């Protein structure tokens, strides 16, 4: 399947934001935007849902904590019980610090791995840089030409109001 994409380039994040808002108001399908830094409000302009990554972190943290607490109790009281200074075998208050550390470790490492997996990023992945300078100082909006009435000149006129730098049609083959 191939798609026709319209790649429009801007010099300023506010232009990109305004163009994105305008594109959405006019009912164009936004494929993605590419920016050198996180532009605040762009996800809303693109109509993206907010991410649920935080829930994953919470679940990871809780599972790390439970697993470690269980492990400490199991090693200290079941697997090889050792009487340390007459302290109870299940001395839960003393297990709190390590439980906390492992909770943070699970949540942190797990969230990073989940993020990489979700966004399909991995070491050595060949980057598909949409437009030269997009990691430096260019702001790019990519629209999908998904119906017959899509008129490039209309888009040019629309985006022209926002200091459009360049407009380019591309065909994406997958």
């Amino acid at each position, binding site marked *: 399947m191939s798609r026709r994409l319209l790649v429009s380039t801007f010099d300023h994040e506010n232009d990109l934001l305004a163009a994105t808002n305008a594109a959405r108001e006019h009912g164009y399908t936004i494929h993605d935007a590419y920016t050198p830094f996180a532009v605040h409000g762009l996800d809303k302009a693109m109509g993206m849902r907010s991410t649920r990554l935080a829930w994953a972190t919470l679940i990871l943290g809780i599972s790390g904590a439970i697993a470690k607490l269980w492990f400490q109790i199991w090693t200290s009281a079941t697997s090889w019980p050792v009487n340390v200074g007459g*302290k109870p075998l299940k001395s839960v208050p*003393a297990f709190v610090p390590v439980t906390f550390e492992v909770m943070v470790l699970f949540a942190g490492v797990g969230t990073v791995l989940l993020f990489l997996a979700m966004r399909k990023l*991995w070491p050595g992945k060949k980057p598909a840089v949409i437009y030269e*300078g997009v990691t430096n100082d260019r702001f*790019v909006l990519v629209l999908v030409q998904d119906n017959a009435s899509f008129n490039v000149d209309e888009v040019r006129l629309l985006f022209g109001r926002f200091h459009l730098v360049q407009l380019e*049609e591309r065909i994406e083959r997958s």
Partner: protein
Amino acid sequence: MGEVFSVLRQPLVLGNKSYADITDDVCAPMERQASLSWWIAFIISVGVLILGAVSIAYQVMTGVGVWGLNNTVGGAFDITNFVFWIGIGHAGTLISAILFLFRQRWRTSVNRSAEAMTIFAVICAGIFPIIHTGRPWFAYWLFPYPNFRGPLWVNFRSPLVWDMFAISTYLTISFLFWYVGMIPDLATIRDRTKSLFRKKLLGFFSFGWDGSNKTWQRYEKLYLLLAGLATPLVVSVHTIVSWDFATSVIPGWHTTIFPPYFVAGAVFSGFAMVLTLMLIVRKVMNLEEYITLHHIEQMCKVIIATGGMVALAYLTEIFVAYYSGNGYERFAFINRALGPYGWTYWVMVTCNILVPQFFWWKKIRRSPGMVFTLSIFINIGMWFERFVIIMTSLTRDYLPGSWAGFTPTIIDLTTLLGSFGLFFTLFLLFARFLPMIAMGEIKGVLRYGRGAGETKPVEVRKEEVHEPTLVG
């Protein structure tokens, strides 16, 4: 369009920069030949590092007896250095995580190097407990792993085990925070570099980053989550380090004030080290428009605040020792100030209580030379603080019959020096090969305190439609 400046907010980046200028400025030190001063600093650091490595090798082959330890003083420089380096690391996390949560946007100029400093300081710190075990090749025994001795597990009630978990988690999370923050910048360098080798290398390490906003959205969230995790983590780390002392029954150590006192002291010493490093870096690498006097002033203010907390802790300790009515506790503090190691106490008080008071003067806060000198004093003072806590309590405990002294040997001193060698070698390598300033973040605050850069609709004429080009 003329630049519009806010009267309320100072711009965080000076000079009239564009986004491309930022990329050029930050990448410049990496793309030119190393300067003579870098080579001189690097050769000295590596030399000192080798000295330290030789000392450690000698100590490992001979035994911990090569240090000035004895039956009474079971740990001295090793523990002092450990706590000192861990403390240094804390400022990095404070800048990168806590100031991020507090929306202190000036942090963007210094957070990358401060985080790097954290990682290197934690590495330096980690060496000391490992070599203190005497048999570092068995250091993995600290981990609870299934073994053929029972399996015999580690004692999870021991603060030393807590410490091991705290430090290794801290190192892991700090590294992730630093590395994740650097991925977009690595992609920036990848896309601009001319060298094929570097393009390949950074292509590998930048994880195929393409600046997609769908990724940026999750990335921002991830960054916030990591900051949220690192904040309690950093507090827990020095709290647990302080428990190494506080859970024992040695007079002068057995106090509940230790956790907050240690955390404040850690941030205090760490900021002094950040200032020491940043003042050199901004000068040598021409980053004065990014790490401005405003940034230095902010950090000096953090030092006043945390220095005040440390001073309060010193006074509280003395008061509580008096008020406890416990003779041993009282003696510990009289001995601390007036005993055989009294001079170290007064070095500590001078450097940590008196020196930061100079930062009340704006003129001093805005004079890099003065700040640099004072930050060195604080670094020294905070090393002595740990030495005082450890030494005065250990040399004079309950039984006068078991009292002893401690004199560092040459190996003690060269090992301490060696850790500085390691720290500066790593930092110099970082400064040479990685972006010192978070480009992806500083671009986001470039407009701070300036006009918003209005988007005025403009007239355009219709042009020919480009021929479609093929991609993918």
